[in-house]
């Protein structure tokens, strides 16, 4: 009893700030454990089909679930399907978990899976790539669903952990049978509500301000958290987010700005969690056009010559970027994919930083006196993106390539350097996380050939194209033998490595700040999953 009293008193002290809450606690012997977290971006519409973005999908991943899930190390594990088998290469059979209920009490059945497949393909859906467009979902019985394909697909279920299952009945009752069109002129009632099967439910949601979750007592899984309530709030300003953590107003926040890591570490009540993130940062050079748009070289395109691209590669002092710009918060990369996602990543080593070799390559290509080029760079998208570009520009000046840097906000950057303005850029910096966590996605989107409009490798901002890579691209897609598949992936990556088609730089780090009272799993895909959070 004395102990109980003491802990009550401490709680009282901690919450003395809000008198009302303190009164509530004093009357309540077991104080509620409220986990408050903040992110720099907003949680807007709650329809997980209308925005394909990792923070939103992560937040909703506490509320809704897919047929599969991913564990703490991103390994695919059973979710709403308790197991599955590949009956033949064109037929995958999923056995659904029995006794699962949605938050509103309805049973989860095969009908919901078939419905969710249709909804995933509705015109407003942003997650159409979760499954091939000609895949069919066939109900075998109430708890068995077959997915029938027209060509083999070894990674069919790679992204199904974020393809959340909808209740058919509920969606029909709430007018949410279709994902809201981005251009819609009226509000989909679903934008502010959610009905899932997950360990948490949404209590209230104010877009861009505050969202309150509470645990789902009827969840099918084994509870691994001890929370009574979760409050999410957006805090846009870096300094304020840090202050909120240090003052104890919040228990966890993402991201900690690189320059504030020490301050958080030195604080008595907070710690910093650091892990490599999946996103790779890289440089694109326009090797598509016959003449660069923004250069003093006329009549030809220096970046079409692999020697020039390799010279750029070897002129970059990646160690300096790692220590000076990223303050150690990055992992230098020889590949366009995180080593966590490709088993044979260890075979690849970066071309060494070597100014003399770079100069020689440039001279061999006929550019001994260098040339001028403009570089486009986002300044609010990746960790210290602008700083990296400035460093690259300066490093290239050592081999007489004079870079004029254009830094701009992300909305502007993606318009200029991307398909909207037909890749109106000669040299730029981009980052990419493959949604499927698989190499094929990178080979298709980043180094896959495209036309002038972007048909093909949409995010191949430099338009690099190699015939063999495009051949391999098609083969990898349908190869189900994982050893042969990995070999083909290795070959594609090796070609890009030798030709320096796209130059990888590093994987940036995830930097979370948490209160010392909280234990939470920091998964490399930067999803904040509080169903694994324990609070003292």
């Amino acid at each position, binding site marked *: 009893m004395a102990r109980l009293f003491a802990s009550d008193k401490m709680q009282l002290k901690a919450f003395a*700030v809000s008198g*009302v809450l303190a009164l509530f606690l004093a009357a309540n012997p077991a104080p509620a454990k409220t986990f408050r977290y903040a992110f720099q971006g907003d949680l807007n519409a709650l329809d997980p089909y209308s925005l394909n973005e990792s923070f939103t999908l992560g937040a909703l991943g506490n509320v809704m679930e897919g047929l599969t899930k991913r564990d703490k190390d991103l390994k695919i594990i059973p979710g709403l399907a308790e197991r599955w088998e590949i009956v033949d290469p064109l037929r995958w059979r999923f056995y659904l978990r029995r006794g699962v209920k949605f938050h509103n009490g309805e049973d989860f059945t095969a009908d919901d899976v078939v419905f969710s497949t249709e909804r995933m393909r509705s015109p407003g859906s942003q997650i159409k790539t979760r499954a091939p467009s000609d895949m069919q979902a066939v109900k075998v019985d109430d708890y068995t669903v077959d997915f029938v394909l027209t060509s083999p697909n070894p990674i069919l279920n790679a992204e199904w952990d974020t393809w959340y299952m909808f209740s058919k009945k509920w969606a029909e009752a709430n007018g949410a049978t279709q994902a809201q069109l981005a251009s819609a002129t009226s509000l*989909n009632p679903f934008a502010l509500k959610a009905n899932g099967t997950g360990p948490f439910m949404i209590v209230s949601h104010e877009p861009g301000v505050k969202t309150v979750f509470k645990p789902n007592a009827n969840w099918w899984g084994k509870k691994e958290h001890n929370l009574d309530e979760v409050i999410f709030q957006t805090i846009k300003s870096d300094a304020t987010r840090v202050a909120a953590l240090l*003052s104890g107003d919040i228990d966890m926040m993402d991201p900690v700005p690189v320059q504030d890591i020490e301050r958080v570490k030195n604080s008595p009540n907070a710690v910093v969690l650091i892990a490599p993130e999946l996103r790779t940062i890289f440089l694109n050079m326009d090797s598509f056009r016959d003449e660069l748009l923004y250069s003093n070289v006329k009549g030809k395109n220096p970046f079409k010559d692999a020697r020039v691209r390799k010279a750029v590669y070897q002129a970059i002092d990646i160690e300096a970027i790692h220590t000076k710009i990223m303050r150690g918060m990055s992992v230098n990369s020889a590949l366009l994919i995180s080593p966590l996602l490709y088993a044979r990543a260890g075979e690849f080593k970066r071309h060494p930083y070597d100014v003399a070799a770079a100069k020689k390559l440039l001279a061999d290509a006929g550019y001994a006196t260098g040339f001028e080029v403009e570089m486009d760079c986002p300044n609010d998208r990746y960790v210290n993106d602008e700083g990296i570009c400035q460093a690259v520009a300066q490093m290239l000046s050592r081999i007489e390539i004079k870079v004029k840097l254009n830094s701009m906000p992300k909305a*502007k950057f993606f318009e200029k350097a*991307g398909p*909207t303005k037909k890749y109106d850029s000669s040299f730029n910096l981009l980052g990419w996380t493959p949604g499927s966590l698989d190499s094929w996605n990178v080979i298709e989107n980043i180094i896959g050939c495209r036309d002038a409009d972007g048909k093909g490798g949409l995010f191949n901002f430099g338009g690099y194209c190699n015939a063999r890579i495009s051949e391999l691209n098609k083969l990898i897609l349908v190869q189900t033998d994982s050893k042969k598949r990995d070999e083909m992936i290795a070959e594609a990556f090796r070609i890009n490595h030798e030709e320096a088609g796209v130059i990888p730089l590093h994987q940036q780090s995830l930097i979370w700040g948490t209160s010392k009272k909280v234990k939470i799993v920091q998964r490399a895909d930067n999803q904040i999953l509080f169903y694994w959070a324990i609070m003292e």
Partner: protein
Amino acid sequence: MLAFAIRRLFEAAFVMVTVALLAFVLFRFVGDPVSQMVGQDTSLEDRQRLRQELGLDDPIAVQFARFLADAARFEFGISYQMKQPVTAIIAERFPATLELALTAALFAVALGIPMGVYTGIHRDSWLSKVFLSISLIGVSLPTFLIGILLIYVFAVKFGVLPSFGRGDVVQIGFWRTGLLTGSGLKALVLPSITLGLFQMTLVTRLVRAEMLEVLRTDYIKFARARGLPQRAINFGHALRNTLVPVITVIGLQIGAIIAFAIITETVFQWPGMGLMFIQAVQNADIPIMAAYLMLVAFLFVLINFIVDLIYVRVDPRIRIYGPGASGR
């Protein structure tokens, strides 16, 4: 009087259309809203279809005409990011900004006037010098720095006030107020000081200058000669006469406080219109930007209009000439 009001209304309409046009031209340069709306895996065809549906491919003149027609009906469309009607979002965010702005104005007046009076009367006392130094800080430090400084002192160091947000709110009809809860009031302290500090400085300096001016006038000397008590002279005669310009300036500043709450709201994550606007700019959320700019322009026009009318009522020296006469 009526002719004057009508003429001002026409001018106001002209200002609004000009603002709309300028805003519209600016939107050409904020970037591509579509790439901020879709996921990275969305296909080229879907992107193009979306751009077409949003009308972003139409000629600027067509887009502008459509915008004006919609705006005239208070129809600003759906936010690209929040997927809600813009008018509903603004209605939701406006109370937060207005409460903050009015509290900041109140703070500025409640502290600024006494400080101005004191420094006006006791020109050389040490306290006056302290007041004037504080007001110097108010004009010279940028708002975000003041905000961060206050957060670090009162939230992190002493832990007495919240570092961000609006605290608990109470819904009264359509109005969501933070003024009725303890945490809401506490949350209001730091942002309103941050926002109001500059205005407080302005009021202090204005009142001080006016006081110095008025205290030299003949009627104050006469009042002194009559042997009236000092207090009655300072507050009954001097201060009252300084207030006319002060009230005008405060009135005009309220518009400015609302419009420039952007920085304060960002620093404190205050869920008002300014924060909404900043987020919209970063995501090229054109419907929100357009509506916000129109609203701010409207507020300024409205306040100016009211001030003009009050001027005419209060100060008979300001003559109104009919149309055709130059100046007024």
